[in-house]
């Protein structure tokens, strides 16, 4: 297998640095792909489970654009729905009937939720969820999980991150994942001033193994919220429609008050949604939260088509099975080369890590070797399985991983591992 080079990507990046902060800012920054020289920087086209960079290199995408891609890039069903809608009207003075259709479909689909609100990005709806909770309860504090990510708004980033002030962070209290006792302690300390508890269905902190909820965790959290009048917000932005079409809360057996969706909602078309129970609809209607493009019709049409297709294909079950197959075989390959691959989280969006090196450097090298052979795997983030990761894709992936393990072994044996 030949390995890729990225000349055109790097040339484009140099141009970008002159006119864009960081060259590529935010979560798409190539700086976190370690080592950067092993990774492409710009995509030219995409189809199915793959994308091609501007140097013509083909990649099986295991990041799925960090989640939005779920049916495959360029899925005809979704794209046709969007095209049809674009031809009619997209951003206009009045919203489209698609907004009503999508809200009705979501209310029917997602268990326990009785209304839906639409925006563009995940942070739009996590922000809205917190405002709704504060409006409904009259309280200030929000409890979140250490390492939990709910968008880049100042209040949700860690204290001392650039641009974040103590005032921004003062109303967010962080506790460890799976620690119900810590939540009880906070409740006792901030009696009657906690508006909301927000968390992802399982813990997916970057640079760390994923952690599933312990037995009874969510039912205990829910019970505390009910007892104390705290709004339970499920951030289903990353997981949504990958674990269960009715919502990830059904997968783990609890009922939130508000659920945030984004990413896979429309297979990459820009739309997010906050859904909630009837008890919070009045509060939601009183909170003013809006955006110029939040009524865009084409992403709504795309979302409808995407959700119907996912439901038709029983997507979560299929993707979980693909993930189980892929990661168990990947682990066997690792063992055959003398490595230990630790797989954590749910198979449909697992985190993988070479456990042989506590510094992560070997894992970073291996991920880079996979990527420059055509399986894009980031070392710092959970992976994603989509409906496009079929048997042929898995087979090709495993061949790449096998060669990457062999390459890593060779580097170590020759003393060439330069971390």
């Amino acid at each position: 297998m030949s390995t890729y080079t990225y000349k055109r990507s790097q040339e484009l990046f140099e141009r970008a640095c002159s006119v864009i902060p960081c060259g590529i800012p935010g979560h798409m920054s190539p700086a976190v792909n370690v080592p950067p020289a092993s990774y492409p920087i710009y995509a030219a086209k995409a189809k199915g489970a793959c994308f091609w960079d501007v140097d013509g290199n083909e990649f099986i995408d295991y990041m799925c654009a960090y989640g939005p891609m779920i049916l495959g890039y360029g899925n005809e069903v979704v794209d046709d729905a969007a095209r049809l809608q674009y031809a009619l009207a997209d951003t206009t003075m009045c919203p489209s009937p698609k907004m009503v259709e999508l809200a009705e479909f979501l209310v029917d689909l997602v268990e326990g939720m009785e209304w839906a609100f639409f925006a563009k990005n995940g942070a739009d709806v996590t922000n809205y969820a917190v405002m709704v909770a504060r409006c409904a309860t009259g309280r200030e504090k929000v409890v979140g999980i250490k390492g939990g990510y709910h968008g880049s708004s100042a209040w949700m980033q860690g204290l001392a991150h650039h641009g974040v002030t103590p005032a921004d962070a003062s109303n967010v209290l962080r506790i460890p994942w799976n620690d119900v006792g810590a939540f009880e302690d906070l409740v006792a300390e901030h009696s009657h001033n906690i508006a909301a508890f927000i968390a992802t269905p399982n813990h997916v902190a970057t640079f760390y193994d994923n952690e599933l909820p312990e037995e009874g965790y969510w039912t205990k959290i829910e019970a505390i919220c009910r007892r104390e009048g705290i709004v339970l917000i499920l951030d289903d932005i990353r997981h949504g429609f990958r674990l269960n079409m009715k919502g990830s809360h059904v997968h783990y057996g609890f009922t939130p008050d508000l659920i945030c969706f984004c990413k896979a909602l429309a297979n990459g078309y820009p739309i997010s949604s906050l859904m909630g129970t009837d008890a919070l609809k009045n509060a939601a209607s009183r909170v003013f939260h809006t955006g110029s493009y939040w009524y865009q019709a084409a992403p709504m049409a795309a979302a409808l088509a995407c959700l119907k297709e996912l439901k038709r294909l029983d997507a979560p079950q299929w993707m979980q099975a693909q993930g189980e197959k892929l990661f168990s075989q990947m682990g066997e390959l690792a063992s055959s080369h003398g490595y230990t691959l630790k797989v954590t989280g749910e198979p449909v969006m697992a985190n993988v890590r070479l456990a042989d090196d506590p510094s992560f450097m070997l894992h970073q090298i291996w991920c880079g070797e996979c990527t420059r052979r055509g399986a894009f795997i980031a070392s710092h983030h959970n992976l994603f399985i989509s409906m496009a990761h079929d048997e042929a894709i898995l087979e090709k992936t495993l061949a790449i991983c096998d060669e990457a393990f062999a390459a890593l072994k060779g580097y170590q044996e020759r003393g060439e591992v330069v971390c």
Partner: protein
Amino acid sequence: MDYQKIKASLNLHAVLRNLSTLVACDEKAREIIKNWDLSLGFKIFNGPSLFLVFKDGACRAGEGAMEKPDIRLFFLSASHFNAMMEGRAVPIILKGFSHLHFLRRRFPKLTDRLAHFLKPQAFHFEDAEFRRINTQLNLSVAMRAVCELATQDAMGRCNASAIPEGTLAIQVLPKGPVVGLSKKGDALEVADVKPEEASAILRFRDVDVACDLVNGRCDAFAALTRGDIAMRGRIPMIEAVNLMMDRIPHYLN
């Protein structure tokens, strides 16, 4: 904690303490101190203390009080000490009146030399030797400052708590310097870390890249993508330390 107290702690343990680094890497500084054979103790009332020993053409720095320094300088408050560092106040001499000439005329030559590197003008960066020493000093100051912020500054404590256990090496290729930190339990300390043994490495392609970064003259993310700066290993360690380093200018210009 009080702004002036944190600033004084940084001025004492990160800036003044690095006179030892200055002497080690700057020929002119060694020339200044070549005949010095004495010790100074700095003490802030109800606050930290530091000593400097000049002997045999070298400077050794240490935290805490020295038993019998030749010169003992006292500061009524953290603000007093900070003002002295900014040239707006003088210390109270508790011991060493016979060294008045040294304190007024000779010691300031060394501290002025430190200020020359730590408070540069734009044109100074045109000189390669300046860049080398400026980079070494800034990295050394930064490591000590980060350890102070980890315990004294609210944001620093927050970031420090996110640093996983292990060691971080910050290395300038091809020939150094290398500075390091070690996190064990809650304690963050400056440490002598070999890059090949570190849990995390932040590596600069050369002195020029390092100099640009420590002086706020480069886009770090762009430099990382280009490979001018490389991160390896436990990235959360690098991220947290980087945030703490960016906190330093809040106290020290």
